[in-house]
């Protein structure tokens, strides 16, 4: 899957086995069209990057996918297990339900789910441009709180916890183990009991990703994870993201301005401008797309275009 980057294939891997299918997504705020009729697919097990100039609507697309906003129109189908057939998808869309079992697994229409179920049922997790850790809670607690659902599922609500049942203790132990695994992964084991707000910026970024991973997502949405990182931290981030994709079969959807990150780790790039999609393809193809180069900087500003895309305009 990872090697798909520079060899354009027909059909594309993300069309063959999409995890997320975004169809005709529009989001209007009053008269302002933040996102207009955007469609794209994010492949299973792939890293999909959404790029575009400031104000292109990237974060709005994210907010719709993760339940932060209800889109004005459009369909966001998340297909766990394997792609749903057209007939299955149409039947689900026509009916009033938010999800259905399909031959390959289960399909969720994200725009119909309440926000907490986008995480707990559809298994979509996200991070924010501005870090939103629970800064007053400890590093470890931040990771445990993300596992609230698995701890309270199957009727194990709190009064039962008082009885200290073995099954309850097992669940708690499993939650703690997962949290410690991710702490180790991001190298913060020593700081488990410090308030999350006390960590340096780069560590907070990685902790936010670890917290999202503790919800055991199938799709991880990262909003500018490399923003404000120095080159060393940025490199650590790439390592972490690659590990997530290869070791955890979690697909990644990424908004990023740092082209070195985008080109290095993504399999598929979607380019937005003024709320519309202007290009979609493998990183190598997108990088050479004249529309992309023009939209990024205006055609005449050659020097900066090279700096961003790595290719003379």
């Amino acid at each position, binding site marked *: 899957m990872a090697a798909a980057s520079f060899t354009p294939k027909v059909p594309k891997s993300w069309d063959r086995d999409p995890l997320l299918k975004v169809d005709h997504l529009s989001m209007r705020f009053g008269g302002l069209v933040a996102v207009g009729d955007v469609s794209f697919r994010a492949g299973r097990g792939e890293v999909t990057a959404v790029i575009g100039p400031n104000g292109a609507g990237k974060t709005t697309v994210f907010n719709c996918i*993760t*339940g*932060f906003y209800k889109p004005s129109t459009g369909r966001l189908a998340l297909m766990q297990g394997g792609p749903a057939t057209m007939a299955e998808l149409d039947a689900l869309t026509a009916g009033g339900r938010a999800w259905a079992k399909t031959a390959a697994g289960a399909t969720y229409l994200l725009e119909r789910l309440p*926000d*907490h*179920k*986008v*995480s*707990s049922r559809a298994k979509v*997790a*996200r991070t*924010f441009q*501005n870090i*939103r850790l*629970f*800064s*007053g*809670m400890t590093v470890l*607690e931040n990771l*445990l*709180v*993300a*596992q*609230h*659902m698995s*701890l*309270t599922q199957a009727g194990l*609500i*709190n009064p039962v*916890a008082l009885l200290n049942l073995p099954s309850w203790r097992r669940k708690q132990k499993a939650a703690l183990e997962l949290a410690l695994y991710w702490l180790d992964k991001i190298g913060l084991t020593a700081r488990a009991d410090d308030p999350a707000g006390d960590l340096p910026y780069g560590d907070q970024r990685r902790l936010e990703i670890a*917290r*999202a991973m503790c*919800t055991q997502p199938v799709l991880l949405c990262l909003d500018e994870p490399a923003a404000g990182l120095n080159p060393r931290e940025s490199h650590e981030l790439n390592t972490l993201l690659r590990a997530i994709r290869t070791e955890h079969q979690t697909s990644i959807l990424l908004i990023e301005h740092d082209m070195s990150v985008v080109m290095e780790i993504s399999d598929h790039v979607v380019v937005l401008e003024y709320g519309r999609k202007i290009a979609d393809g493998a990183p190598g193809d997108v990088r050479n797309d004249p529309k992309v180069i023009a939209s990024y900087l205006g055609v005449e500003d050659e020097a900066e275009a090279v700096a961003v895309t790595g290719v003379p305009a």
Partner: protein
Amino acid sequence: MDIFLQQLINGLTLGSIYGLIAIGYTMVFGIIGMVNFAHGDVFMVSAFIALICVLLLTTVVGISSIFLVLAITLVVAMAFTGLVSWAIERLAYRPLRGSFRLAPMISAIGMSIFLSNFVQVAQGPRNKPLPPMVPDVIVLMERDGYQVTLAYKQILIMAVTAGLLFGFWWLVQKTPLGRAQRACEQDRKMAALLGINVDRTISLTFVIGAALAAVAGVLYLMYYGVVNFADGFVPGVKAFTAAVLGGIGSLPGAVLGGLLIGLIETFWSAYFSIEYKDVAAFSILVVVLIFMPQGLLGRPEVEKV
């Protein structure tokens, strides 16, 4: 010295009751930033539930052990009061979430008036007395005919309060529900995006706050032996004051504030004039808030992003 000791005991007893009610105010404020003005009346309703329960158990069922009666009453009052509070949140506050800030506050004031008027109509406007329960006292010291006494029921009140506070602290600090509550307190939207059902967490917060108020209601009824439909107001305001004094949003602060208000009130009554006890309590509140606007244990206002 003897008067001091006696007032210390009385003040701590009263303060325990205020503290238990104050936790409900501070928790709800912490999680949704709203002052639940109906909380004092929820406390009053719980005392009535306890009254009815005690009368039923002693006369109809005929249980003679007073401690068994109290234990059953405590459980029944906690359950029913929790239910009442859950319904209030569901009907009067949740539909207004997301509307302008004053709407739930007005709704809460309305609920407060509704509850006290409902009880007035249903139970009558007169004081409802109970025969004295647990009348035994321990005489700690005696001098010149003045006895310093520690009543069994005072011990009971302080012990129940201390035990509950420990259990409650454990709940908030160590269990997933407590973690979810603290997460919702800091960033509700983010908590939802991590799969926490925020509405349910808020409902549970109301239920827990009401259950603690119900304990206070049972203890209050046992201590004073009388309850009235208007009894929610003054203890409610005092407990709210306690929550503000301790730093609203802070759980240890609510308890500390409750104890302080109780102590100030009883000491002022003993050494100065009993008519001005409320004036004294509120004056000290004003002075503390001038110099420590966030309350004794409150965090300074943190910017939410």
